[in-house]
């Protein structure tokens, strides 16, 4: 360890993983499958999420491979349609939506607020089973032929024209939706009712605020997509006519119902990631997050504004010009709280003691890529440019900058940041720093060319394209292989570290959250006695004082 690090590990010769912790308390497969411990459920989610991520990733690889050449040579066009649809369905509903909340949120919300568990532990387990049922149904769908409507289930394509497995995919999304609703509901109740004494709303870590805002969206928006899917299913099977123009129904109604969920859903995906970034940036610059209150309320503002912008997905679908005007304006408003966050994180760095451990490198990646993703969102929010850019690769690039460059970077930042707490062991620092940089480079090489392709007019969702676009597509595919390496590396070394990683001790980062003030891995009950919060969040002076009072290093 050189001096440019805050890592503070116990003496490896004498350090031991505590004998009694949430992993060792009970043994056997059933003790995991029937657990109601939020930490174990988080681990179940982490394993299953990663599994679905790599399936979705493999499909993305196939897409990029097909697009290496202008002709359709790897697969038939209808296969290509199925591949990008399943890529979207799996990545959105089975990875991005539950990613941070179901793993890190599940694990750390109770610990950060000083509770023993979520308010509804059995509901929490139920939500994992619903998630798995939905996920396996989606895989089954893929095995029996897939679906080719795009992840948006656009009517009347999905109700009248395709003969693929719309119903089973719809059911998979419906079931996974209930998993998401229950998770959000559980978080809200927990944050309201389970806080430790002294843990006031404005002492909560910003991770909690971000999850609170995302949970509001999960609870209020998800039921609407559920009913939209029910209507699709009934339209398809019984011909009820609500989306069928020949019977007086209007396909646009489906778009409204679908995007009423699916736009807020992108905030469900990104907000918890923003929570992770707040924690990481504060810890690795040794400073309280600048403008704590502003960052906290900007999460809530994103959630609230997020409900009133959905029709910007429909600018070219024949909604009225006045609606376009209003939704365009409201869409711009979302940029304000997002920018508040970015600026405040940047100010947090100002005059901080910055160190460059892996979570921080991912967080820097997030700052840059999310900013680009967010700014290009403003291009798409203004109706004039949107009409030119929508349905091109520009929108693909925008979405992936926000979701992969933003959310996935935040997810990996969080996984590395809390890995020592979850497992009691450190990941290999040098290798993981390298993986973070590889991810960043690979990401830019993959998706930046897609902005240009979109500007030049290459439409999305086609297996072939005019030959003049090939060079940029080759860049993109090459980048995707690098990105693939960047994602495989963490799986390998994180699994390796479970056995061979250095013992982390309680608080390797010298972070201030309550979750760091207990043993790693934590006890089943999280704390030996109920913690009392007597200081503000991110209070590094309090931490120093604690260390002096104890007379021992907290890592000891």
């Amino acid at each position, binding site marked *: 360890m050189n001096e440019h690090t805050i890592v503070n590990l116990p003496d490896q010769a004498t350090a031991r993983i505590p004998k009694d912790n949430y992993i060792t308390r009970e043994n056997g497969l059933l003790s995991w499958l029937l657990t109601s411990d939020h930490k174990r459920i988080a681990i179940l989610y982490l394993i299953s999420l990663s599994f679905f991520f790599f399936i979705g990733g493999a499909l993305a690889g196939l897409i990029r491979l097909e697009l290496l050449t202008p002709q359709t040579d790897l697969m038939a066009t209808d296969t290509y349609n199925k591949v990008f649809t399943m890529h979207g369905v799996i990545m959105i509903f089975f990875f991005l939506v539950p990613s941070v909340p179901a793993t890190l949120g599940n694990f750390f919300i109770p610990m950060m607020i000083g509770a023993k568990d979520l308010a509804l*532990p059995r509901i929490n387990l139920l939500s994992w089973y619903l998630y798995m049922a939905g996920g396996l149904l989606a895989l089954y769908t893929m095995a029996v032929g897939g679906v080719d409507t795009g992840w948006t289930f656009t009517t009347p394509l999905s109700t009248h024209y395709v003969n693929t497995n719309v119903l089973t995919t719809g059911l998979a999304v419906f079931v996974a939706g209930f998993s998401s609703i229950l998770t959000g509901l559980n978080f809200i109740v927990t944050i309201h009712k389970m806080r430790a004494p002294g843990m006031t709303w404005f002492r909560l870590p910003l991770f909690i605020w971000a999850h609170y805002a995302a949970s509001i969206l999960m609870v209020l928006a998800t*039921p*609407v997509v*559920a009913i939209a899917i029910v*209507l699709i299913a009934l339209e398809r099977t019984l011909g009820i006519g609500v989306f069928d123009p020949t019977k007086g129904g209007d396909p646009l109604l489906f778009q409204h119902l679908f995007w009423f969920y699916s736009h807020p859903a992108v905030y469900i995906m990104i907000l918890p990631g923003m929570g992770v970034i707040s924690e990481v940036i504060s810890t690795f610059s040794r400073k309280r997050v600048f403008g704590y209150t502003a960052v906290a309320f900007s999460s809530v503002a994103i959630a609230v504004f997020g409900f009133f912008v959905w029709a910007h997905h429909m600018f070219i679908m024949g909604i009225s010009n006045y609606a376009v005007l209003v939704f365009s304006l409201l869409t711009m408003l979302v940029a304000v709280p997002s920018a508040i966050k970015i600026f405040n994180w940047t100010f947090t760095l100002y005059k901080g003691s910055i160190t460059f451990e892996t979570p921080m490198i991912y967080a820097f990646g997030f700052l840059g890529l999310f900013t680009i993703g967010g700014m290009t969102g403003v291009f798409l929010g203004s109706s004039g440019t949107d009409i030119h850019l929508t349905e091109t690769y520009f929108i693909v690039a925008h979405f992936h900058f926000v979701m992969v460059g933003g959310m996935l970077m935040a997810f990996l930042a969080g996984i590395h940041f809390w890995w020592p707490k979850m497992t009691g062991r450190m990941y290999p620092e040098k290798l993981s720093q390298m993986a973070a940089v590889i991810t960043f480079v690979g990401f830019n090489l993959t998706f930046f060319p897609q902005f240009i392709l979109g500007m030049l007019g290459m439409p999305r969702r086609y297996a072939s394209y005019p030959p003049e676009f090939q060079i940029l597509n080759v860049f993109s595919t090459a980048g995707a292989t690098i990105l693939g390496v960047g994602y495989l590396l963490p799986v390998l070394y994180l699994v390796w570290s479970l056995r061979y990683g250095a013992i982390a001790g309680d608080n390797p980062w010298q972070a201030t959250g309550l979750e760091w003030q207990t043993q790693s891995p934590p006890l089943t*009950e999280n704390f030996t006695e109920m913690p009392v919060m007597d200081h503000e969040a991110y209070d590094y002076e309090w931490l120093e004082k604690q260390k002096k009072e104890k007379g021992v290093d907290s890592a000891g």
Partner: protein
Amino acid sequence: MPDNSAITSNVAHEEHPAYLRHHFSSAEQQADAAGFAMWLFLLTEVMFFGGLFTAYLVYRNWYYPAFVAGSHQLSVVWGTTNTAVLIFSSFTMAMGVWCAQTRRRRGLVLSLALTFFLGLVFLGIKTIEYREKIEKHHVPGFHYSLQSFLDPQSNPEVYAEYHDKPLVPDMARHTELYFSLYFLMTGMHALHMIIGIGILGFMILRARTGAYTAGHETFVVNFGLYWHFIDIVWIYLFALLYLISRH
């Protein structure tokens, strides 16, 4: 690790009632959390039904004459009876909650059983109504018939009451949309009733053993919220589907 060896003794069982789960520090906190969760769940239900109400709002505005003609095919008598049945069941449910809170076991069982029975009565009446729709070919889909709307006199009972004029074919075919929404909304409501009745059955069995009358009535209270919510949904459905032209 200075003093983490004696951890388990600190968190061992203290004296507490059997229903208090480990992660709560008091029974009040537990009841509070459960109640709050129930209200949130009802909020998700509002959003779920909200999608259907949105569809109703749009199509009723577009096809008002068709919606009026469609609503005339429903029986206001049965609808009113069912509304009364449900409101009365809300009363018996509220009595049940009161009995649980004041620890009256027999009163609780009786109230729950009455609620259960009234729920079944509601579904029975709904079945009669649905059967009538099937007989008149008013079920959207394959066998939908426009006859009642193109030639209202073919349906003497309804005609005697409302003297509806025939709709032009283009408007008449939109009655199918009205009946789609009718079946969707009342069907979704009936599904909630069936689930509720199932849970009531379970509660009656447990209430007989005194499970809710020993200080832990949270389940009954929260189920009461659910039951009242379904009733409120029905009151909206009754007004929107049966009483369109009566204002």
